[in-house]
């Protein structure tokens, strides 16, 4: 496929999306325009199903095209400042896929907009009347983001040394800024639906609503932060799965080594960011409670209470699969065998943690179920299902996962600093102390009131975070001048390890669909919470079983399309692979121009 053809296709998709937003939205939003009907209908799956699929698949693509640029600029920076050309190549390889995925994102965005305007015209009119200005800005930023992406990708080989390389990296940063701004604007629309300005009622005309109070609503910033981190996780997981696929189909040891390394980096980023994600989720949950207690209770203790059991199970799978990949990966690291005996204990902690975390507690129950349990809580499981136990379990799981990373990192090095033994003991001390603090507050939580108990989770989280930061700092200092126990044998991974990466990406994607249902579903039968009721035939919020089927359809559609994009990316341009090790150390900031080993020379401009 030629570049001009590709660009035309992308531009067409963009124009379609832009035309939709610019022309249809404000037309409907104009005061005095009569909406002939409240709702449209869609064959077989209904209006709600159609919007659900369009919104979810669009969001998954959007998460990918926002997450990967973050990944790309970090990788490019490591390439520049760490003088490691592998990372530069990695960044470019994914930006290439980004260019194709971008058009899919725009197409699904257009589909969503058309569905909203035709199936929910009154609601869309309401939204557009309040947010029309931000919709125009959104469109403008969309253009800017697109052309920044073109410059960033097509200029890769042109601006690859010296100051030009730094300027190119700056383009990557700009791309992230535009993308984040676009996401922030879209987030304001959906968060407004959850948390419209306080005091707004069903009688308040949309034209009377202050733009900024609707835009910067109570849940806007928590959702922004939560999505930024989640996008990084998602980007890392997709990168890892892509690498796994390439690894399994690799035809040479060099190729296998390259994709093994790439999979490791993707998994590291995904699991690393995942560790931080619960804290952002906790903030979002707290803001929901503060905005409206009823909404918070519906989310955690109402008809959605079972959803969190499924969520706990999925996150348990993520922790187990992520750790499994690391443990198997230690087989290719000389010296790692000394840590092998500890793996079974870490597995035990993780399994127990998942079991406790996934234990139901405050479930919505009818009278028969209450009678069968002999009270509002299960006589045995009720004790494990409380937040004291769950917080303790999840914090210990995070500590264990971090320990896996640490052992992986330390596996093939022998510290040479004089204080190496003391340093390792201090690191161990941090682990033990953090675990004791987590356990102490977990047990103490059973003896205090709920309001005091909630505060304990802060101490537990802080102790884990402090331990992680302190241990990392010590470890970086310990590794200075350390001797190698042997080079990592990249590519010597059993194929089963790569299937763990597929399980990870499917689970991440499914989890995003589940959390999307949770966020949207807590509005129940309201388009805009307590302001605009949903009076359509699809107003009831479905049970988790039906939601799971919809989520699975969305996940399958997304994964099928992203696989096609990856395949297409392979057709367009086969990345060159250099033998590893030794690791290439190309000085990207040198003033003289030299081709980067493994870079895509077919795009090398004539100069």
């Amino acid at each position, binding site marked *: 496929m030629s570049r001009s053809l590709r660009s035309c296709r992308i531009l067409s998709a963009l124009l379609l999306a832009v035309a939709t937003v610019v022309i249809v939205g404000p037309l409907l939003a104009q005061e005095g325009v009569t909406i002939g009907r409240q709702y449209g209908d869609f064959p077989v799956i209904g209006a709600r199903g159609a919007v659900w699929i369009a919104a979810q698949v669009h969001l998954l693509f959007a998460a990918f095209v926002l997450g990967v640029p973050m990944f790309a600029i970090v990788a490019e920076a490591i390439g520049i400042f760490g003088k490691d050309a592998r990372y530069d190549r990695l960044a470019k390889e994914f930006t290439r896929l980004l260019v194709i995925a971008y058009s899919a994102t725009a197409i699904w965005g257009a589909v969503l907009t058309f569905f909203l305007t035709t199936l929910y015209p009154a609601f869309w009119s309401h939204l557009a009347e309040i947010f029309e200005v931000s919709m125009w800005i959104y469109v403008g930023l969309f253009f800017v983001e697109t052309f920044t992406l073109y410059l960033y990708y097509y200029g890769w080989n042109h601006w690859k040394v010296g100051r030009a390389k730094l300027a190119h990296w700056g383009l990557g940063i700009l791309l992230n800024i535009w993308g984040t701004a676009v996401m922030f604007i879209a987030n304001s629309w959906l968060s407004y639906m959850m948390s419209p300005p306080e005091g707004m009622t069903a009688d308040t005309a949309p034209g*009377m609503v202050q733009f900024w109070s609707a835009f910067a609503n109570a849940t806007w910033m928590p959702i922004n932060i939560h999505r930024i981190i989640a996008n990084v996780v998602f980007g890392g997981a997709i990168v890892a799965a892509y690498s796994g696929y390439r690894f399994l189909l690799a035809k040479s040891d060099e190729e296998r080594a390259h994709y093994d390394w790439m999979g490791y980096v993707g998994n590291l980023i995904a699991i690393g960011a995942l560790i931080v994600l619960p804290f952002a989720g906790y903030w979002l949950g707290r803001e929901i409670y503060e905005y409206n207690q009823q909404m918070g209770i519906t989310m955690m203790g109402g008809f959605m209470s079972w959803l969190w059991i499924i969520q706990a199970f999925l996150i348990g799978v993520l922790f187990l699969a992520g750790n499994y990949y690391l443990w198997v990966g230690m087989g290719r690291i000389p010296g790692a065998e000394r840590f092998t005996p500890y793996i079974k204990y870490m597995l035990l902690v993780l399994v127990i943690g998942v079991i406790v975390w996934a234990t139901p507690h405050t479930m919505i129950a009818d009278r028969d179920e209450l009678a069968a349990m002999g009270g509002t809580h299960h006589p045995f499981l009720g004790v494990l299902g409380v937040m004291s136990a769950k917080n303790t379990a999840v914090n210990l799981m995070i500590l264990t996962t971090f320990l896996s990373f640490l052992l992986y990192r330390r596996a093939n090095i022998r510290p040479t600093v004089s204080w190496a033994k003391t340093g390792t003991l201090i690191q161990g001390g941090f682990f033990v102390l953090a675990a004791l603090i987590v356990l102490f507050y977990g047990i103490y939580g059973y003896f205090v009131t709920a309001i005091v108990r909630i505060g304990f989770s802060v101490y537990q989280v802080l102790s884990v975070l402090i331990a992680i930061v302190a241990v990392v700092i010590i470890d970086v200092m310990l590794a200075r001048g350390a001797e190698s126990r042997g080079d990592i044998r990249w590519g010597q991974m059993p194929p089963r390890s790569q299937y763990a990466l597929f399980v990870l990406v499917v689970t991440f994607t499914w989890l995003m669909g589940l959390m999307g249902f949770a966020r949207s579903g807590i509005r129940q039968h309201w388009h805009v919470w307590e302001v605009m009721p949903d009076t359509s035939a699809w107003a009831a919020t479905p049970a988790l079983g039906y939601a799971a089927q919809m989520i699975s359809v969305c996940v*399958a559609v997304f994964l099928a399309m992203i696989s096609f994009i990856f395949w297409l990316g392979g057709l367009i341009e086969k990345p060159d692979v250099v033998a590893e090790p030794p690791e290439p150390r190309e000085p990207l900031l040198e003033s003289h121009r030299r081709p980067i080993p493994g870079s895509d020379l077919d795009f090398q401009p004539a100069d």
Partner: protein
Amino acid sequence: MIATNLKIISVTLGTILFYTFLANAIPQVESEVPAALALGAGFTTEELVSAGEDLYFGAGGCTACHGTGTRAPNLETAEGSEGLIGERCEARTEGVACKEYLHESLVDPNGYLVEGYQPIMPDMSRTLSDAQIWALVAYMESLGGEVSVVAADIEEAASASAASTGAGAPAAVTASATMEPLELLREHQCLLCHMLGDEGGPIGPPLTGIGAEQDAESIRHAILQPNADTTAGYEAVAGTMPATFGQQLTAAQLEAMVQYLATQR
């Protein structure tokens, strides 16, 4: 290559199907839409209680707190030795009948906060109709007590609601012929939110001294298009003032009100 691709597809689809199965294997709870309560002219107490019970366990969402955990009093079991809610409601507040107490608890929940609980109960009148609220009251009375809700309660609530809201318009739309500015301010409920002298509420910006800060034109603009600008410090209530005074006031009444406020220095 084909075998590897098939393996990858199998793992991917298998994982998706497993999660779908898992989510379908747990208890299925749907969030229903509160159905409009259609009670015939001669409805019986049993019908009312039954409608209330449906709401209580369904669309009303009551059991999310009342019945599980320790968020709110359990209404279906005895709290201490006081009995079920239908038994204990009469004694909750001296001089207040059971049904009034329960009704107030639903529409002004923080008025009767039970000791030891957080003020988390929402105002149910935002999501349920008057008839639905009375049906809930009847159901709660039936839990250990006598149902005292009668048709007149529902009819009275419905007629009061119709009188205050008209055809979906904001409250207090009935315009009188008075030209007295202060009377107009009271009649149109401006002083529910704005302070003027010792009178009024603190929700919106005070009108005391407004003439020193704004000229007549600005005041007129603020009445007709109240949400075009937000006074600093009142962002939290932005967008809440009705913009319907242009239709409710005659031109002369509006002018009388504007000139009066412009002299408040």
